[in-house]
């Protein structure tokens, strides 16, 4: 597929002065394969690890979705039965809705905030490092620690951390994780807190890449700050904005940790997400061991996300060139 692009240009390219080395390919005719045995020795760890733990399981994922597999008996081909079973499961639609809701909320919360923060930060002239370090700090907190800590913050009692703060403003205690209407936004809030720093850093890097002469040219035409922001900064960030958008979709579609640790899908399946459902098919006792259904649902989700990944890849390729 795109493998030819991976070889970086200019490796054997012209370098001033020294005569170019003889093109390697001419020496190889009739002799050993280029690189020969050493190349295979160096490739071996990668081939083994990727083979056993990546390529083989990917292939197996496809095969398994058409089989009935448990660990005791030999797998049996069942055609599309696993897919039919998944589509017949009313929980699937709950999970799709919840995952979609999570993704939409994550965009509403998590998309504008890092952008605004990054644009403001890029205008900071002193201590910019402090700003970005503070913003990035939540990203390095282990996610399990973050979720368990926020679970304490979200205590439903009047003396919970967040409810105490709300209490100062006279707002009544909120049952963050028990109220079916509040629980999903609460999960997204934590996820946004945990992830925004990474996005801010990406935007900051992109903002330093905006050519200042564009601003200068606009100023000669008498453009104000808002005009420059709207007509120069944001268009210049277009590519990176699209990339973070796609990355966020791919990430939120596979959300697991928050619903699993905060609520375990509750209350009343209001936070049951697709990955949680896959996990339950395969690994919990009530539904457990239904590897075929889990593989089938994984495959369906993966097909959708792969389309996003390829789009992402095309975009990064075409924009990194310029």
């Amino acid at each position, binding site marked *: 597929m795109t493998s030819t692009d991976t070889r970086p240009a200019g490796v054997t390219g012209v370098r001033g002065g020294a005569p170019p080395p003889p093109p390697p390919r001419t020496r190889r005719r009739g002799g050993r394969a280029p690189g020969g045995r050493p190349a295979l020795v160096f490739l071996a760890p990668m*081939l083994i690890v990727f083979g056993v733990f990546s390529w083989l399981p990917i292939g197996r*994922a496809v095969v398994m979705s058409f089989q009935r597999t448990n660990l005791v008996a030999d797998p049996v081909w069942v055609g599309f039965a696993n897919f039919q079973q998944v589509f017949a499961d009313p929980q699937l639609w709950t999970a799709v809705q919840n995952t979609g809701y999570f993704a939409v909320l994550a965009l509403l919360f998590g998309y504008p905030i890092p952008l605004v923060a990054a644009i403001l930060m890029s205008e900071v002239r002193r201590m910019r490092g402090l700003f970005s370090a503070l913003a*990035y700090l939540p990203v390095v907190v282990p996610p399990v620690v973050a979720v368990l800590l926020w679970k304490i913050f979200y205590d439903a009692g009047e*003396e919970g951390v967040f409810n105490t703060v709300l209490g100062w403003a006279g707002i009544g205690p909120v049952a963050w994780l028990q109220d079916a209407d509040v629980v999903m936004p609460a999960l997204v809030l934590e996820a946004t807190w945990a992830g925004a720093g*990474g996005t801010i850093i990406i935007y900051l890097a992109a903002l330093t890449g905006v050519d*200042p002469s564009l601003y200068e040219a606009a100023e000669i035409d008498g453009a104000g700050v808002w005009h420059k922001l709207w007509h120069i900064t944001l268009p210049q960030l277009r590519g990176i904005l699209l990339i973070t958008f796609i990355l966020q979709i791919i990430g939120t579609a*596979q959300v697991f940790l928050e619903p699993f640790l905060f609520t375990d899908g509750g209350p009343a399946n209001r936070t049951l997400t697709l990955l949680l459902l896959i996990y339950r098919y395969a690994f919990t006792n009530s539904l457990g061991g239904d590897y075929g259904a889990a593989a089938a649902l994984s495959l369906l989700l993966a097909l959708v996300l792969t389309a996003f990944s390829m789009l992402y890849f095309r975009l990064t390729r075409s924009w990194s060139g310029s």
Partner: protein
Amino acid sequence: MKASADRGLIAPTDWKRPSVKWTARLAHGVLLAGVAIAGLGPMLWLLKAAVTPTQDTLRTPMAFWPNGFDFANLAEAWTRVEIDKYFLNTVALAAGSWAVQLVVAATGGYALAVLRPRIGRYVSGAVLATLFVPSVVLLVPLYLTVLDPPLVGTSMLNTFWAVWLPAGASAFNVLLMQRFFANLPRELFEAARVDGAGPYRVFWSIVLPMSRPIIGVVSVFAVIASWKDFLWPMLVLPDPALQPLSVRLPVLQQFVELDVFLAALAISSLIPIGLFLVFQRLFLNGASLSGALKG
């Protein structure tokens, strides 16, 4: 690109205008307060709560100064709750994952970028293709692979290998290394070859010493990623004695008193936050690097 450091959206002449200056200062003050409260606040709260008696934390969680300190929480979490054991497990998992990732990415990257065997382009393509595959696909088949791995014969369940080896299959690492190696001056390899150095010698004495920056990036991200990992170690290490902190903490929450539990949370965050503070530049540059991924 460098010139942009001189100015941003706001013109240098505008900065001299008081209205602009004060508006910007106000916005930055608000922003600084915001990132400080959001970024540092929860961690400071955790730090305080880790050395505060349970009753204080329950009754007045937002009290700035607790009624009493209970530094014994930390010791108790470390010894009685056996955080020390889970901490060591986490370190062992991180160290092994780091080693496997580094070996796979360095040797593979070297083969693809420098030795360039004829099958290189196909291998490269196959590695790259795994970037497109969302990790959700791997969950179940990888679990079954660990239960019954090819060639090995015995299950890897409840061994650290079940975490270490799959960590090595990171296309992103291979790609980073491959790119870095490909940009090393090729004349050096040629000169070494003329001097009689074989491919092993070139790898060990030239390529690796010159690649410290990229090895540093891959290493830090490998350790952090391993420290964060939750679902996979939970699946393949059902034996509590082998579990890392991330897997153990949710269980501990159910039967450890709150103050000791919070102390355990604080201890668990120490290493990643410490790494971040030490290698700040690496993180903040590297994050943009992984964002503009393969850029």
